[in-house]
């Protein structure tokens, strides 16, 4: 089982306590009504889907219940770093 470091609990916790929340750092448009269909589609559906380091949201659902962000390698499934919601993606996490 993978252990994930929760930045709020400040400890490594078992994977089954967590749920995945999709790509991180996608801000909801402040005025959706001002967007055309293509822009709204891009916000809703278009994701980077990289091979390698991916910044993504996770929720410690069966722990502290908080959302946080993680950089995970989509090839190895290895968690490189986790950080609190609102913090920027750490520099130098990509290999």
């Amino acid at each position, binding site marked *: 089982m993978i252990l994930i470091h929760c930045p*709020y*609990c400040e*400890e490594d916790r078992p994977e089954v*306590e967590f749920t995945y929340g999709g790509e991180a750092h996608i801000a909801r448009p402040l005025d959706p009504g001002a967007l055309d269909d293509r822009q709204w589609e891009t916000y809703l559906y278009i994701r980077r889907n990289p091979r390698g380091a991916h910044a993504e949201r996770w929720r*410690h659902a*069966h*722990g*502290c*219940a908080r959302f946080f962000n993680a950089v995970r390698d989509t090839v190895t499934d290895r968690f490189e770093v986790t950080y609190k919601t609102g913090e920027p993606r750490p520099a130098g996490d990509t290999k």
Partner: protein
Amino acid sequence: MLEIAPMAVAGIDLKRGSQPITGAVYGLPVTLAPAAPLVRWSLRAKDAALLSVALGRTLPDRVGTHHDGIARLGPDEWHGLLPLGTTLPAVSGQPLGMVDVSARSVGFTLEGPGAVAALTRGCPLDVAKFTPGRATRTVFETVEIQIWCLAPDRFHVEVWRSFAPWLWHALAEAIG
């Protein structure tokens, strides 16, 4: 405030009986029993100091610990397990959530040298490192629970009422 019937707090039909069960895991004895009825609070606040003042209680600092009947489940969430008759202070106009949820969950105790091993049968945490004073939400098999370590070989397990009969059976199997 909503009055909660005493039966809702105390009574729980565990289907397979609710008498304490003593078993063993790896030869280490352990007893599973329903916990005494308790008052339960759900407490939410961005500012822990404000909540502490409103309650007139010292709250546990670290996420994952309990102190004086209150566990810090997350940075903005606490759960109280307090003696029957304890009442929430009447506070209004403050950015706090303080709700009596006494009937929402029930408690079990696991006590004895086999308590850690019994929990480990269904809980993915490293329970052996879970020392007195620790408390957290986690899972047992597929059911969400809270475990509070009260002493090296004594744990309080908190579970939502509708899952309680299942968990009681699962724990009985784990120590049987």
